[in-house]
């Protein structure tokens, strides 16, 4: 009897111990609520991006040919030459640098150094803005000069060997010889404006290999999904960069005003936007891989 009453008393005591857990203030993940939720938001965002990139892969797998990234992405500001992948490498470095300056801002925040936080956040914002400007250049080149839109894609690759012919089936002669093309070689159909609408040039090929050997076909557009996927996915990433720049600016102004210094929590808000900003860089690693390297 005495034993059970002791046990009972012990139970009530344990119950009292549990009770205070409901008062809050205990962090099982050793991270504040805001930081934890930022992590889980980023997990969900990672799934969104993964869904888009996997869709790109599935459509690419379903297509007999796909535009070559080092042929499509080869323009560079003020340079007429064909510089494959150079400009997107520059964009990648802009994001890496802005990620590094963000790490510095977070570190200065832990030291409660307001000037340091504001200085490094300012550099981070500059990096984000430079990236957005670069993306604007890339999109402008593709849309205005190469006529790629969400439903038009003049970039393609020949599906079989052949020679170029004119509309009457006569071989196209360049430098005294007929123009022959190889399977997987890239092409770009140039466009011109007609009554305010872009029309792509008509080119014809007489195949010398493959299932259509001996037949004359019009060289059509490349896989149309390419344009939609490119603008949608890089646009979604660019929108993340843009929102990042907006939030970084707000938080930098708040830091300048002394708001976070008053909170005395090691500029946790800077740490949270830092997580988001690194995530944007992380996504770019995979966008860069999928669109430009593979």
């Amino acid at each position, binding site marked *: 009897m005495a034993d059970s009453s002791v046990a009972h008393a012990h139970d009530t005591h344990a119950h009292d111990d549990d009770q205070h857990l409901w008062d809050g203030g205990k962090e*099982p*993940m*050793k*991270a504040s609520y805001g930081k*934890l939720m930022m*992590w*889980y938001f*980023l*997990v969900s965002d*990672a*799934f969104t991006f*993964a*869904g888009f990139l*996997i*869709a790109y*892969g*599935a*459509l*690419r*797998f*379903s*297509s*007999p040919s796909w535009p*070559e990234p*080092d042929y499509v992405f080869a323009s560079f500001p003020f340079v007429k030459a064909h510089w*494959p*992948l150079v400009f997107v*490498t520059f964009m*990648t*470095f802009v994001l*890496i*640098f802005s*990620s*590094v300056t*963000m*790490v*510095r801002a977070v*570190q200065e925040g*832990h*030291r409660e150094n307001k000037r340091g936080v504001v200085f490094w956040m300012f550099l981070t914002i500059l990096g984000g803005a430079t990236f957005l400007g670069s993306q604007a250049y890339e999109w402008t080149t593709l849309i205005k000069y190469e006529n790629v839109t969400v439903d038009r894609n003049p970039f393609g690759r020949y599906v079989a060997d052949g020679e170029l012919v004119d509309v009457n089936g006569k071989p196209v002669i360049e430098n005294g010889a007929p123009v022959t093309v190889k399977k*997987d070689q890239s092409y770009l159909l140039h466009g011109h404006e007609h009554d305010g609408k872009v029309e792509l040039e008509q080119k014809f090929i007489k195949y010398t290999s493959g*299932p259509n050997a001996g037949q004359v076909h019009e060289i059509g557009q490349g896989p149309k999904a390419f344009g939609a996927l490119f603008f949608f996915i890089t646009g979604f990433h660019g929108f993340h960069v843009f929102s990042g720049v907006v939030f970084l600016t707000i938080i930098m102004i708040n830091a300048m005003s002394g708001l976070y210094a008053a909170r005395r929590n*090691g500029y946790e808000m800077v*740490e949270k936007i*830092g*997580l988001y900003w*690194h*995530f944007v*860089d*992380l996504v770019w*690693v*995979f966008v*860069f*891989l999928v669109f*430009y*390297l*593979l």
Partner: protein
Amino acid sequence: MAGHSSYEEQKQLVFRGLKILGIITIVEVAFALFAKGHVVPSITFGKDGGFGQGIYMLAMVGASLYKAYFIVFFFMHMAHEVRGLVLSVLLPTTLLIWAIIAFFQEGSAWGASREHIQEKNREVVQPGSQSKPQGYILPGTYQG
């Protein structure tokens, strides 16, 4: 977070990150240009299909995954978080492995179906040598 390492060590981490991410990116791009025939025109294993392209793609995916690991664990401080937080973020992403396998399989199937349809469209049916239809004809239905 702070307090795990001295301020100087933290600053060194930043430069190490810059170096690692920068070098990997430059190597990736240089290897891409090399494998796709922009350095030596005859070397194009990175876009020829088959084994060479498989190796090329694996190398690119591997390098990108390492960059991702570095960003998450050192820039985002995942290395200093408690195990529960690390697992609750990283374990769900393993679902993506199946998503990749399943959707790439699905994509190949779409391609195969489209190819099949085009093959069928190319088929030419030869008309029969006799003008009268062959086989059993219901009485009173043949107009020829």
